[in-house]
């Protein structure tokens, strides 16, 4: 699946198309950017043709310093391969004739930007890394609760959307309902968002599709959110043992990242929204170093070890 094409770069960075218009739909496969300096000098042994090529002042000055017209033509020809997604000239510099000729023949798009080379290079890398990050889609609901991105998962019909509605009613923010697109933007960072078509929408059985933004206002939604906690809802299983202490840490792996997970049994009369709200607050507290379960457990252990119960507080 192609995630980003040259055309996206042109739109995003306002690049000027010099030649090779036929190639603007070429896909970009890697976020690495190449500055072909040694290639200008004729060393093509390790030329990374699949990368986006960036020609700055250094590369072009060297090129203009070449006197042999044959060499100039040859170098530019070898720069434009079938694999090359595109070549970008920075600082609004003039584009060599030889490069335009080569690009027209091979349909490699040549673009120009007025930004300086290093800045352009870092912006391009950032953008490409974001776009090319590994991604997946998960069946669930993503809500921002007190600033914690909570992904609620569970079987169809267990009450994910209803819980989300209640959470929105309590002032939290909906990110995505039913289908969450997740991107691993950097190591250990998962960003979730809704597929564009169903952004801000919630489906409640019996009501149908509702628009959370028009109903509750712009404060009730978010377009994307980092996922910090997974809560799995499941129908109460008599035979299953549920966590009673909160000392165990269950993890769920999404792409290459592990996220803490809690499994919450659903039974009539349990207010899930409140439970999830508290789970999110407790998660924040744990991150600040306050773990109620662990502190209590340590106290209990101490009492048992010392044997006699010393009542100092009363």
């Amino acid at each position, binding site marked *: *699946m192609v995630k980003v094409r040259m055309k996206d770069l042109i739109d995003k960075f306002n690049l000027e198309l010099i030649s090779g218009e036929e190639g603007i739909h070429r896909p970009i496969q890697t976020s690495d950017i190449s500055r072909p300096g040694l290639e200008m000098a004729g060393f093509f042994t390790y030329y990374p043709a699949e990368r986006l090529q960036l020609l700055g002042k250094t590369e072009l000055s060297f090129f203009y310093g070449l006197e042999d017209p044959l060499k100039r033509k040859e170098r530019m020809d070898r720069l434009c391969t079938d694999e090359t997604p595109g070549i970008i000239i920075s600082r609004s510099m003039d584009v060599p004739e030889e490069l335009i000729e080569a690009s027209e023949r091979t349909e490699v798009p040549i673009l120009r930007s007025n930004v300086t080379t290093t800045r352009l290079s870092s912006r391009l890398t950032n953008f490409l890394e974001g776009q090319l990050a590994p991604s997946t*889609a998960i*069946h669930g609901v993503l809500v921002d609760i007190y600033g914690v991105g909570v992904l609620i998962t569970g079987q*169809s*019909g267990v009450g994910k959307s209803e819980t989300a509605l209640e959470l929105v009613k309590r002032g939290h923010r909906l990110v995505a*309902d*039913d*289908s969450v697109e997740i991107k691993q933007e950097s190591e250990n960072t998962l960003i979730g968002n*809704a*597929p564009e*078509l*169903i952004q801000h*929408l919630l*489906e409640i059985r019996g009501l149908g*599709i509702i628009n959370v933004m028009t109903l509750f206002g712009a404060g009730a939604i978010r377009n994307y959110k980092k996922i910090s906690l997974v809560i799995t809802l499941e129908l109460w299983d008599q035979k299953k043992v549920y966590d009673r202490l909160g000392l165990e840490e269950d993890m769920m792996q999404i792409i290459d990242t592990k996220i803490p997970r809690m499994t919450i049994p659903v039974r009539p009369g349990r207010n899930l929204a409140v439970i999830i709200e508290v789970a999110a607050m407790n998660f924040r507290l744990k991150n600040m170093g306050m773990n109620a379960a662990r502190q209590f457990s340590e106290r209990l252990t101490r009492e048992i070890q010392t044997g006699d119960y010393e009542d100092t507080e009363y």
Partner: protein
Amino acid sequence: MVEKELVVKLETGLQARPAALFVQEANRFQSEIFLEKDGKKVNAKSIMGIMSLAVSTGSKVIITTDGNDEVDAMEALTEFVKGE
């Protein structure tokens, strides 16, 4: 697990109403059912998921069913997207 790639022949594609019917059909089965289009995979029992794919007529989709009634589920859903 049963997996099948097929072309959607349903004239309207999976617009809102047909999508709801498709999901209703999928929910009749116990198996886990997924629908994939252009590398995006969603739970076939979730209407928002299905609609987010915007499946048009003629598009290629992959249906996966997994569970004790996977064969029946596949048959029913295949029949559905054929649009007869």
